[in-house]
């Protein structure tokens, strides 16, 4: 009997202890502790970021080293959870001061009043120094919401051993860049040669690992639609609209996403996955390029480091195009919450991390492509092969993904439509379906 009571008592206390231990959640309110030399004390700024993304610990430490009155506490989540975590924290009474967010979401966050405008904090040189892609991505309704942190884009990597064996020499300059039909022919040729040589399937184009590893991710695959358009065509033409893929006021995609040109691009895209000229697989195959299971791979610029470390003999050629060369830009940008209690300090910190000597040092050490042209000039690695290719792509061809306050929904519908097309759906039907699902949301 006593034993029973004891057991119940133990159970209760264990449960309580565990419950208390489990109750810890990350609320840190900014506090100011008085310290000599800092008139307002040392202020603690809260930072929210995605794992392995900016603002990284080295970036924060470097800023702290030269600004002793500021310190940081960091909360980080997997990249896939970043958007929902921001959505959860935004209306709370305690939003993080500094946020490292996905740049295409700028318009969405700014339009809901979540982000602080940076115009009063930016140095006067910023506007002319920053790449145009970053400027348009970080601007909403005439105001700038982040100085931009880095840029990144896709290039076409290739396994030199396999392409040499197949007798293929991809172009090395933007002027000579392939069109998609040319690229597909090269991929097909390499695929046939390599498969014969290896005795097992080698793909012309590696299945993409972007998104969740299945086809359709708009960052890569919407390029097939947009590239069929022409920004220099008359503003009412479908060719013009295909390139921009979203109406200027952001309220509709009908006639912008499902144009005849887009359908043409989608049909070509579909034929990469099936039919006699298929060069890639509908399901994932990790590390295909590294393992010699694929000749080409559309990948981000950081892949160069990965391939170097893996000891693969690789090359890079610009992303192919149809009518107009285009690449999607957009990486992580750093911003400040509008309702932060230390907006000036936080904005200063962000600008400090994203400009000047500290910025250059970070970009050099991590081989990142900066958003400031002046910084790029001071990085010799970026004017040499291979990284010169993505740098020039960003400068000359870079466009953000269609910005707007409903970017998440746009992304979901476009990715889903492209995935269906890759799996064999009729392109016109799939694009029309995306339009009819998306328009009600966009027009809100």
């Amino acid at each position, binding site marked *: *009997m006593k034993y029973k009571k004891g057991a*119940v008592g133990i159970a209760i206390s264990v449960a309580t202890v*565990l419950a208390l231990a*489990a109750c810890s*959640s990350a609320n840190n309110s900014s506090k100011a502790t008085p310290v000599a030399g800092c008139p307002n004390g040392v202020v603690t700024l809260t930072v929210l970021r995605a794992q392995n993304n900016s603002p990284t610990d080295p970036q924060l430490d470097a800023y702290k080293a030269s600004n002793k009155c500021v310190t940081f506490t960091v909360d980080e989540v997997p990249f896939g959870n970043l958007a929902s975590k921001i959505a959860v924290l935004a209306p709370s009474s305690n939003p993080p001061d500094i946020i490292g967010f996905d740049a295409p979401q700028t318009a969405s966050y700014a339009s809901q009043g979540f982000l602080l405008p940076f115009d009063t904090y930016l140095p006067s040189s910023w506007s002319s120094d920053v790449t145009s892609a970053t400027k348009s991505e970080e601007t909403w309704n005439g105001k700038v919401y982040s100085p931009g942190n880095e840029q990144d884009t896709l290039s076409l990597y290739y396994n030199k051993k396999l392409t040499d064996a197949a007798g293929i020499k991809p172009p090395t300059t933007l002027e000579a860049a392939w069109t998609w039909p040319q690229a597909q022919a090269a991929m097909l040729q390499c695929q046939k040669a390599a498969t014969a040589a290896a005795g097992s399937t080698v793909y012309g184009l590696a299945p993409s690992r972007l998104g969740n590893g299945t086809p359709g991710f708009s960052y890569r695959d919407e390029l097939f639609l947009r590239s069929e358009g022409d920004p220099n065509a008359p503003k009412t033409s479908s060719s013009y609209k295909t390139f921009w893929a979203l109406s200027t006021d952001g309220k509709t995609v009908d006639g912008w996403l499902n144009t005849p040109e887009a359908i043409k691009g989608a049909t070509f895209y579909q034929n990469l996955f099936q039919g006699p000229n298929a060069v890639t697989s509908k399901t994932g195959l990790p590390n295909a390029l590294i393992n010699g299971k694929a000749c080409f791979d559309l990948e981000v610029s950081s892949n160069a480091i990965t391939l170097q470390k893996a000891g693969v003999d690789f090359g890079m050629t610009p992303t192919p195009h149809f009518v107009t060369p285009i690449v999607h830009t957009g990486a992580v940008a750093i911003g400040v919450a509008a309702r932060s209690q230390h907006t000036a300090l936080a904005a200063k910190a962000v600008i400090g991390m994203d400009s000047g000597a500290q910025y250059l040092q970070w970009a050099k050490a991590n081989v990142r492509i900066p958003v400031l042209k002046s910084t790029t000039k001071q990085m010799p690695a970026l004017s040499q092969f291979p990284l010169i290719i993505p740098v020039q792509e960003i400068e000359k061809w870079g466009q953000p993904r269609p910005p707007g306050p409903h970017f998440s929904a746009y992304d979901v519908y476009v990715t889903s439509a492209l995935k269906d097309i890759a799996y064999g759906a009729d392109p016109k039907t799939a694009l029309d379906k995306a339009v009819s699902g998306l328009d009600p949301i966009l027009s809100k």
Partner: protein
Amino acid sequence: MTAKTGQRSGWGRGLLRRSARMTAAGIVLAVVVAVFLLPYLWMVSSSFKDQKTIFAGLSPFSWSVFIPVHATMSNVVALFQKGIGQALLNSLIVAVIQVGGTLLVCAPAAYALTRIRFRGRGVIFGLILVTFMLPAEALVVPMYGVVSGLGLQDTLLAVALPWISSVFGLFLLRQAFEEIPIELDEAARLDGAGHVRIFLSVILPNVKTAITTLCLVTFLFSWNAFLWPLTVIQSPQRQVIQVAIAQSVAAGELPNWGITFGGAAIATVPLIVLFLFAQRFFVQGLASTGLK
């Protein structure tokens, strides 16, 4: 092994029957092994393989897919470096809270519903029964609203708390309590025992099987839960094992089948071991979910 009718037997026919039986048993066993066991074997053996070797046995097919020929621990090491140990611990904490809480909350409730005649018992029973019919997954959105209203979002407690008032547990214990003869109650009452005494000394000691079953089944539900932990927890250091491995399939870095397989294996092995040792309870517990 003689035929039931007894008349047309003869050991020749018996032998034929015997070998027919063995063959049938063998076929069934082979099919079941192929369909149910081999996928697990593949999963476990691939966890110990390098990325390249995983694909080596697949095209063309060879039996080496099921045997880790060049076994390596690198996947397991990588997993623990990524923090899967923390995820396992989180799942364990949640499971302990859920099991403990369920017992603490459902046992007295079951006692009240079976042993105490009181006004309004029927009404309360009805209220409980209504919630029984609601599929939990459809309530995730507002449940999240309630939990963040309480300030409990992103805590392990919030992962376990909504399931502690488990109607399934209530019914399981209720069934077990009803099998205890009321005479024992009355004998204790004659000795001057009140409800609490009766509960602790008459009822509880006699339902050990049901309690063990409830613990095991609740542990199973808690360990395997996915949608709710996915919704409620955002920080990686508080993530539970099922969500952690689901996120390893998703994007962000260079994907590695070996690591994903390894994660899946690690997530499953504790339960399979538990199941193998406590099969009887599991099977009975899940089967007894209301056959009466």
